[in-house]
């Protein structure tokens, strides 16, 4: 099936190769690649490729997420597959000490944590952590509910976007 994918990534050397590698590795046959520098420090890349089936596409998506490459839009055979939405929030608390990997893994069951930035003045103090999560638009409520539940359980203050 023919897939058109719009990727957004940071404008640093090597990123494009990093983004295309998972497609080739999982059997994708790249037809065309165009990229444009529009937004500040962010490059938008349109990749068209042919891939055997949905499970191959899922593997590509997973690998891109692992590489922290934002999949903005996917079109399969000319039909919009899904539009992703980016959700940002800040957690304040002992986020590292309360198993941050567990926090991320649980959120990843509903979306994909694509960015984590931690600020901590000292190991004993509470840390402030900004997370970006890529989600399907329709799962917004479920993801926020999950984050809220984790915050309650681990004693974090949640600052979500408006």
């Amino acid at each position, binding site marked *: 099936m023919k897939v058109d994918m719009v990727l957004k990534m940071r404008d640093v050397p090597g990123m494009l190769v990093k983004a295309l590698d998972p497609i080739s590795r999982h059997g994708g046959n790249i037809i065309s690649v165009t990229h444009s520098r529009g937004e500040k420090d962010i490059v938008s890349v349109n990749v068209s490729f042919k891939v055997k089936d949905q499970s191959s596409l899922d593997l590509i998506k997973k690998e891109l997420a692992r590489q922290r490459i934002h999949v903005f839009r996917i079109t399969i055979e000319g039909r919009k597959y899904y539009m992703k939405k980016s959700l*940002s*929030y*800040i957690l*304040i608390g002992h986020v590292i000490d309360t198993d941050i990997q567990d926090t991320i893994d649980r959120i990843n069951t509903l979306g994909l944590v694509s960015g984590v*930035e931690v*600020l*901590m*003045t000292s190991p004993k103090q*509470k*840390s*402030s*952590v*900004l997370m970006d999560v890529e989600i399907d638009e329709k799962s917004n409520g479920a993801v926020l509910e999950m984050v809220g539940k984790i915050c309650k359980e681990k004693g974090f*203050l*949640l*600052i*979500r*976007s*408006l």
Partner: protein
Amino acid sequence: MKTVKLIVVGFGTIGKGVLEVLRMKHKLVKQRYGVDLQVSGVCEIDGSLINPGGVDIDSALLYAARGKIREHPDWKAEKSLEVIRKVPADIVLELTPGNIKTGEPGLSHIKAALESGKHVVTSNKSPLAKSFYEIAALAEKRGLSLGYEATVGGAIPIINLYRDNLEVNEVRSIYGILNGTSNFILTKMFEEDLALETALKEAQELGIAETDPTYDINGTDTAVKLVILANSIMDKHVSLDDVKVTGIGEVTSESLQLAKKHGYAIKLIGDVANMEVSPRLVPLSHPLNVSGTLNAIMLDTDVAGTLTLVGHGAGKIETASSIFSDIMHIAKSADISRK
């Protein structure tokens, strides 16, 4: 020329601000609207200035400034409730600070005023948040006006905008920054990378925060205003217990620096749709990203679309603007009949 007599209940910061603005604008109101505003009573905790012919504003403010209000020639040992019931007036201005749990003493003042046939204008949030529907029903039953523009958003004309200018609109949601003190603190933390305690101390030194800023910091003040907006504009029949409240006490300067780096500010937002008060990430380009002590309110309506109002949420003169908006709405109506 129509004479409209006022009783001012509560002679603190807001009460003094009202008299200062009255002194400043008395002539303008007379010329522009043909209304002569007079003050027949000014109530303090332990007594009142009473003069049915009109208390002299200059001397009342002068005696108060010297801390000698009790030596004023019009001073009588009569308490506010007696004055409200007995002294002839058209409008009672209830400007006392209120107890959030009981709504008192404002609630009793408002009821006494309405029961004795006087219109009410108030800046007191507590009685409105506690007993909005009871007070509104009493006013309607007596055919009297209840003005409470000054309870939410200081000088921002949100309540009267809805009443007078959005007649055919359904309001789908209301949200915004309703507390100037917390916004000042978050702005300081954001702009100068300060800890909350340092920003709060600065707010106190500038007279922006009270000695006890608990309700500003823990979100209660915002929640009270949220309840008033929810009931008066969206008819939600809610109380303070229905609001999920998280204040700004736990917000760190690091979180503000993180937010800034990613294109956000952090603001304490009251959100009627979710009945929630909480710190939220607000994009830097968003209309609600206002600085310092400013308040900002967004109304999402079905016909007019989204409206944003920005203005000073506190300050005695700014708040007096809203109080006079209510006074003039009543004064300009034809049916002023003194009891």
